[in-house]
């Protein structure tokens, strides 16, 4: 049996789904919590959580992206001491991954990329804005929108080439979508 046949049969087992979800949640948590690039002018930073979400959505499909993206970023919030945001993060980033996965499920072209970016940004930034608005006012909540958009820009700018590079270097991954 070839490697590809082996992989396409193994992905139908519940154990494969559990294993892939667990590993991708860990990947998303580490990309969010550990891998950060400082932005010199603002002294802020960009985390790579959205990169992991774009990668998962393109490579593993919408449902995996919803669960891994949502739970991975929620765990990162928990460990970083922002546990109060974890339930909101689960839905914001989970839906972000789900939308990207659904839009780019069939074919990855420029229209799909732009549309997925816009949909993901609106949903993710929108959920955070509405929740923050209810929690501490819609005026102060506006301050978070530029950061969320920047996160998505980094996510698509790095996530797409990353998915292509991983597919090229490790072809069996193409059979892991479920």
């Amino acid at each position, binding site marked *: 049996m070839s490697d590809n046949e082996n992989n396409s049969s193994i992905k139908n087992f519940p*154990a*494969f789904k559990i294993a892939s979800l667990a590993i991708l949640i*860990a990947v998303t948590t*580490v990309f969010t919590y550990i891998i950060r690039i400082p932005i010199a002018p603002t002294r802020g930073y960009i985390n790579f959580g959205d990169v992991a979400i774009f*990668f998962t959505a393109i490579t593993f499909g919408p449902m995996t992206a919803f669960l891994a993206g949502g739970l991975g970023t929620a765990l990162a919030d928990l*460990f970083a001491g922002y*546990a109060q945001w974890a339930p909101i993060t689960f839905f914001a980033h989970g839906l972000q991954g789900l939308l990207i996965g659904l839009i780019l499920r069939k074919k990855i072209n420029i229209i799909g990329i732009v549309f997925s970016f816009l949909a993901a940004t609106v949903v993710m930034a929108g959920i955070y804005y509405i929740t923050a608005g209810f929690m501490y*006012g819609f005026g*102060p909540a506006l301050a978070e929108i530029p950061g969320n958009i920047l996160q998505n820009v980094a996510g698509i700018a790095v996530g797409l080439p990353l998915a292509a590079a991983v597919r090229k*270097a490790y072809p069996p991954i193409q059979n892991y979508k479920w």
Partner: protein
Amino acid sequence: MITSTFIQGNSFLHKADPRLKTSILLCTVILFFLPLSITAMFIFFTGLVLISIYSLGFFKTLLPFKMVLPIIIFVIILTPPFFKDGASILIIKNIIILTSEGLLHTIRLILRVTGITISFYIFFSTTSINNFILALEWFKLPYKAALVITIALRYIPSMVIIYNNIQDAHKLRSSNTQKIYFWKKINNMFPTLVSVLIHSIKSIPILSMALELRGIGSATKRSQFNIIKSNKMILQITISGVILLLVILVALLI
């Protein structure tokens, strides 16, 4: 990397049932969104701070305040201009900066965001992640979902080690990475990310085979080593429920 926010201790909150604490946490968050008077919110908030000081100590109680400080600053700067009703408190060059209504609303928002933050902080500082997952299972979280989170939690520290090793290996091959532009930094990081992802993805088939061998996916109901016993639970829930209801009633009446 810190993969647990649990702080060792011997307080009543450390000993309390995680299912009970989960229920109370949910009630606390709802309570902060109810249209309570400022006095009621302040009493409730002070109670939480005192519980935190008793359970975790004074200095550890300061941590959530430090984390929420940037948001508080934003609230103080951006909330008052949206409220023009009520008596004027601060006027600069004929422009109303702060009214009594704006001040009350700002205090309410600060109490809400700080109160919710401190509630979550107390919960996750006195409840281990494993106990939290067991509590969620008791609240009918499917076994497979709990298993996924548990495996992910076990895998995160190893992945950090893998990431650091790969990063060190790539650093040895690249030139000086000090004082470089943002996109150059990302470009330099790219091979590390590819290596980390391939290493992680390669472990999926191995992990799934290990899970298969342990009978995951079988229709037979699994037994569990760690469970939460239910004996004291009903009594604790009843007492806490009554106390919580009384607190809410008193708070609404104040």
